[in-house]
């Protein structure tokens, strides 16, 4: 019985590989992508746009979920190399941890480029499609100074400490605040999570921490903090800013609850990634970085987003 099952399985594997071989014969461009984590709303918007664009251009695209693990992404790139794809797109979870994947692709002669986030050995990648993390923090900071003048007490709610976007966004924010009297009086991580930002803000307010401005490194945390501030009846004296321009954050801006956010064009990044992949597959040259700009969003320009 067991032997019989084994035999059937071997047959199945053989059949599948024959079918797979047959598919790779034709001339369509085959692109493989590994994403840092598909349970993230932002990444979902990117991948949806990638799938849509691939469909339009007749590109055969397979998107893999890296589940927020660098070693998983490296293994996925190995698998994509083994499948002999034309171009590999990597949206790395880790600056250092995903670098070996680039080495492997280069060694195998498969062009690889990064999307949304970067790796340490970026020079070995064909290009980078995405935005510049510090820029979003800078735009957020400039928007805050435009609204509030050059002095204020700021509470900063950050992403997971050590995450590239956390480091970059803080760096950009500090750049914008440089030379002003904007002071970060308290800072902590809420790991991009709404419930953690909510509890954190409750605890700060309870502790009598005083600040005028809350800077959250994403909208999810901004919305959590906003909820705590409104529950404490302090919405008149504390202004909240986020990044991402999620749909509920935009609704909150419309209602005058959230002061501003920064739009990162997720769909634009996904679409551009496929366009760039096609250009690479066709042997065209591509610039070292393909920037998709950030834009500040507040009540005055909300209608454009």
């Amino acid at each position: 019985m067991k032997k019989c099952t084994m035999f059937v399985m071997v047959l199945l594997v053989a059949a599948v590989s024959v079918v797979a071989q047959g598919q790779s014969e034709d001339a369509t461009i085959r692109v493989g992508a590994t994403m840092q984590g598909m349970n993230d709303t932002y990444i979902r918007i990117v991948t949806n746009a990638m799938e849509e664009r691939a469909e339009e251009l007749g590109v055969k695209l397979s998107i893999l979920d890296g589940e927020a693990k660098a070693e998983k992404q490296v293994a996925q790139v190995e698998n994509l190399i083994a499948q002999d794809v034309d171009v590999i797109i990597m949206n790395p979870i880790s600056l250092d941890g995903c670098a070996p994947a680039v080495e492997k692709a280069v060694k195998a002669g498969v062009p690889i480029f990064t999307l949304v986030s970067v790796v340490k050995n970026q020079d070995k990648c064909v290009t980078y499609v995405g935005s510049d993390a510090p820029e979003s923090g800078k735009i957020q900071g400039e928007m805050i100074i435009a609204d509030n003048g050059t002095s204020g007490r700021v509470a900063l709610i950050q992403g997971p400490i050590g995450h590239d976007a956390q480091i970059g966004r803080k760096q950009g924010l500090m750049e914008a605040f440089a030379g002003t009297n904007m002071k970060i009086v308290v800072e902590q991580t809420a790991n991009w999570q709404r419930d953690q930002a909510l509890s954190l803000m409750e605890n700060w307010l309870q502790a009598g921490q005083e600040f005028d401005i809350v800077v959250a490194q994403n909208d999810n945390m901004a919305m959590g903090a906003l909820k705590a501030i409104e529950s404490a009846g302090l919405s008149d004296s504390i202004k909240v800013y986020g990044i991402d321009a999620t749909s509920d954050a935009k609704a909150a801006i419309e209602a005058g609850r959230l002061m501003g956010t920064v739009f990162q064009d997720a769909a634009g990044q996904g679409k551009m990634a496929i366009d760039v992949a096609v250009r690479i597959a066709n042997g065209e040259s591509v610039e070292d970085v393909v920037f998709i700009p950030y834009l500040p969003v507040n009540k005055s320009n909300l209608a454009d987003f």
Partner: protein
Amino acid sequence: MNIVRLCERTSKFGIYIAFILLCVVLSILSPYFFTVKNIVNILNQVSIIGIIAVGSTIVLISGGLDLSPGAIVAVAGVMAAHFGHPGQYPIIVPITVAVATGLAFGAVNGVLTSLGKIPPFIVTLGTMTIGRGLALLACDGMQVIDLSERYISLANSEIFGIPILIILFALVFAVFQFVLTKMRFGRHIYAVGGNETASHVSGLNVNSIKIAVYMLAGALAGFGGLLLSSRTVVGSPIAGQGYELDAIAAAVIGGTSTTGGVGKLTGTIIGALMIQVISNGLDMINVPSYWQQIVKGSIIILAVFIDMRSRNKG
């Protein structure tokens, strides 16, 4: 070292003493810690994880283990939120959906562990992973927003000035405390966890008791998911990340045995409060993020150490 020796003398109250010590230290470090407002704040923050931890405790007492509550929180929250948009369904619909989702997960956990005889770690690791996937599938990876006022009030209103979450937690605790200590079913849970074979020989229907326990834990996690989605005003597929471990930690810090047959809900409450107080306190005295995790882990180990020393000597 006097503190440890003092604790050793007060047998079986070790964890309570560790908890009180922690509160005293935090009160000294932050003038805002030991205030009525902050105590209410802490109780409010602990309620959802506390409700889930009640379920984890009874599963542990019955000799099982449940890794799925965090995922159930996400699935139930997303599912309930789908039925929680303004002007569509009466509030009882999302509540039922959330609890039923949890019950269904619990039934699968219970049946596979008892009748299927698959180790609970494997079964619930599986249902946890499935649940995380289902949560994403149920909303296509996007948060479910636009919830009705009534839905939001589920976790955000007050009754006689007391936040409703605290009242719900107290009710859940009271009901399950009664079941565990006063009802035959409660004693059967301890019996099954203490010695399964003996329980079977003495005529207990071990399988149905186990299934019931997992279903109750699932229902509590589902209810917790509903409350979390109401508290955060969004049905999020990534909600409840790590809640299963916090819930198990609360139970185990509170003296529940990981091998079954031993445990008290009062201990679980102290365990849950301990975890919450640590993070509340560290936020208040503004300990840097890197240090928070180190301090948190150390305090948990120290508390259980004091507890175990006091038990052994006492």
